[in-house]
């Protein structure tokens, strides 16, 4: 008993028949063999499965694949087409922003989405009220706050913040470091 759905994953067109209960995460991993997003909880509590859906960072374990007909999905792997590392990937490597790496694809997608949000001027709870609008300045506190949906049990947070700062500095204000 399947349902047809059309998805664009990391730039590739896919037509799938999925169970109505199949999440985007399971569709990616079990149906398409895209092992980039990880399953840490299956309940939207850890961020390991974070992908970009039509440019927004979302937990793919909380999305039903059937509801996403026509969506464009980018995984961390898709952010590095043909192994060409993005500024973010490069910064994560240079700052040793991971240990086991299990949370990393989610961290990268989350960071890519977050840089875009900050560039678009979307405030977080730590953004000063007096902020005049325009791109939010990415202080360490802003990065920590905005990256707190992605758990890292290995405890690489200090280095993750450094990596996101490095990537943001590479293309200031554009939110394009993930590309």
């Amino acid at each position: 008993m399947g349902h047809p759905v059309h998805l664009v994953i990391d730039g590739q067109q896919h037509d799938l028949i999925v169970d109505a209960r199949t999440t985007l995460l399971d569709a990616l991993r079990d149906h398409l063999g895209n092992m980039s997003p990880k399953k840490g909880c299956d309940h939207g509590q850890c961020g390991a499965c974070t992908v970009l859906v039509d440019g927004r960072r979302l937990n793919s374990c909380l999305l039903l694949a059937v509801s996403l007909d026509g969506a464009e999905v980018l995984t961390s792997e898709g952010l590095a087409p043909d192994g060409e590392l993005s500024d973010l990937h490069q910064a994560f490597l240079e700052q040793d922003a991971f240990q086991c790496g299990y949370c990393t694809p989610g961290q990268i997608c989350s960071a890519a989405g977050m840089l875009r949000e900050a560039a678009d001027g979307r405030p977080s709870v730590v953004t000063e009220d007096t902020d005049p609008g325009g791109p939010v300045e990415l202080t360490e506190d802003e990065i920590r706050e905005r990256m707190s949906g992605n758990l890292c049990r290995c405890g690489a947070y200090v280095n993750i913040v450094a990596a996101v700062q490095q990537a943001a500095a590479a293309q200031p204000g554009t939110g394009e470091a993930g590309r």
Partner: protein
Amino acid sequence: MALVLTHEDALRLADTEDGELAILQDEGIGFRGQYLGAVLAETPETARHGADLVEITTDVAPHDAHFRHDHPQVREAEGGADDVETGDVEAALAAAEIVVDQRYSTPLEHNNPMEPHTTIARWDGEELTLWTSTQGVHPARQALAPILGIEPEQLRIISPHVGGGFGSKGVPHADMMLTALAARAVPGRTVKYAVSRQHMFAITGYRPATSQHFRIGAGPDGTITAFVLEAVSSSSHTKEFPEEAIKPSRQMYAGEHRRITQRLLPLDIAVPSWMRAPGEASGMVGLEMVMDELAEACGLDPIELRARNEPVLDPDTGLPFNQRRLLDCLREGAERFGWAERDPRPRARREGGWLIGTGVASATYPASRQPGSQARIRLTAGSYEVGIGAADLGTGTWTALTQVAADALEVDPEQITLQIGDTSLPNATVAGGSTGLASWGTAVMAAAQTFRREHGRAPSDGAESTGEAEENPAEEELAMHSYGAHFAQVSVQETTGEIRVDRMLGMFSAGRIINPRTARSQFLGGMTMGVGMALHEKGELDPRFGHVVNHDLAEYHVPVNADIRSLEVHWLDEEDPQAGPLGARGIGEIGIVGAAAAIANAAHHATGVRVRDLPLFGSDFLPR
């Protein structure tokens, strides 16, 4: 749906001694969350739905799931550590001018690696292959094969990458056995089972609760004359595991009259197991907090108190210490942290509604090397293939062993092809007890030496040698431990009690640091988990049913990015020739040891409130 497996039709195990692994053998239920059956299906959705449809009827028997240190069934652990009893502690306590008598507790803590435990199994005839995530393929094989009634050679375990373990993948748990049994029911077919995050709280081990009662007698100059620690940890009737909180107290500080005892209380709850620095991490919570209280009682700086109780010989074994540089860590750490500017009075610093304080605690972890690891080196098409069944849990084994092999063979790292995580490779000991790299690295170095001796500097293709890590004879003659010091600054919000760790600094003495980059990350990771231990982590056991109520990552809190601010890591530049040819002691665990106590001590300094039960909650600091 394909199949429902229960105790009625599962494979009869050859050995049911291990209550945790002997699943689906009879009708008994040891604890809530135990495996009672399995549903096999073609898709995970169907399997999960099928499992929901299964009805289980139970008879309720009396059970006990409430941990208390004064429970009548508290008893000695089977095969546990011996009691320490020297001198006359009661007389020494009675004579002591200063006595600190306090009880501390640590709760259930759950490893929660980000990668849940997952196994894929397939039986081909009488041979079983497991693709899984484990901290030791060979030890797992050694544990599972006899229970399944097969020879070790009939079981292959493959685990080249591990998404974090922190001890929870150190010994095989029931999920691996369940997958093997399920696959047995469909020979030749591949069965995959991923433990859900919720179920990990019952199946994959956790750090049991501890109660630590200290009574310390000292002279007015801070010299400890009497030292009593009575520790009790929670355990399971299904399988016994003591959390030996007494371990660090045996060797940390001097004291003539000593009594140190470890007991446990078996309950009808899930089976506890290793979690990062079992024994040390929990034991240093109590010890380093009671030392802080003793310093306060004596009017001494906490670092000075530790200096005055620095033992000459190991109080536990009577052996000389090997490179005990605790005081160097405390003093150099203090210098870097700016400890000297501290006003020792509690509740002395207030800024914008926040009370600010600083605290210190020692760190320690035993240094040892496990004998028995073997490595094989083979020259293939100009590349040195180095094979050993070691594990990389994010600890950097792939990098560090490549580096060790390259150094030992005196070639570029690019010329090394490392192979790990497979029982078809030479035997390796477990990645546990911070022994991994020292043990495997010693085997790789031995293999490299043999290789050069047998094949010279211009070996021909196919040349091959093996080497083995022997026992370290120095461990018989020296008390070998790593040491460290944690410094923390915390802020506690006066009206809400909210507590933040503003900055932490760790200073470690761990022998030679093989890869500074991955080592720093290891220390940082340990300290980060220490923040969790201090402020967040607590499995809430329901005494009625014996399960952990907050069994997911929304309710069981671990540190998130915003909880971690400035963390600094330093180490003493040293080598430890006694530890072995690598000159290195382990570093995977010491980063967490003492970290929580430093934070708790800082919270006391900030507020004047002493909280002796972890984790610290905001409500602890509000006026009563």
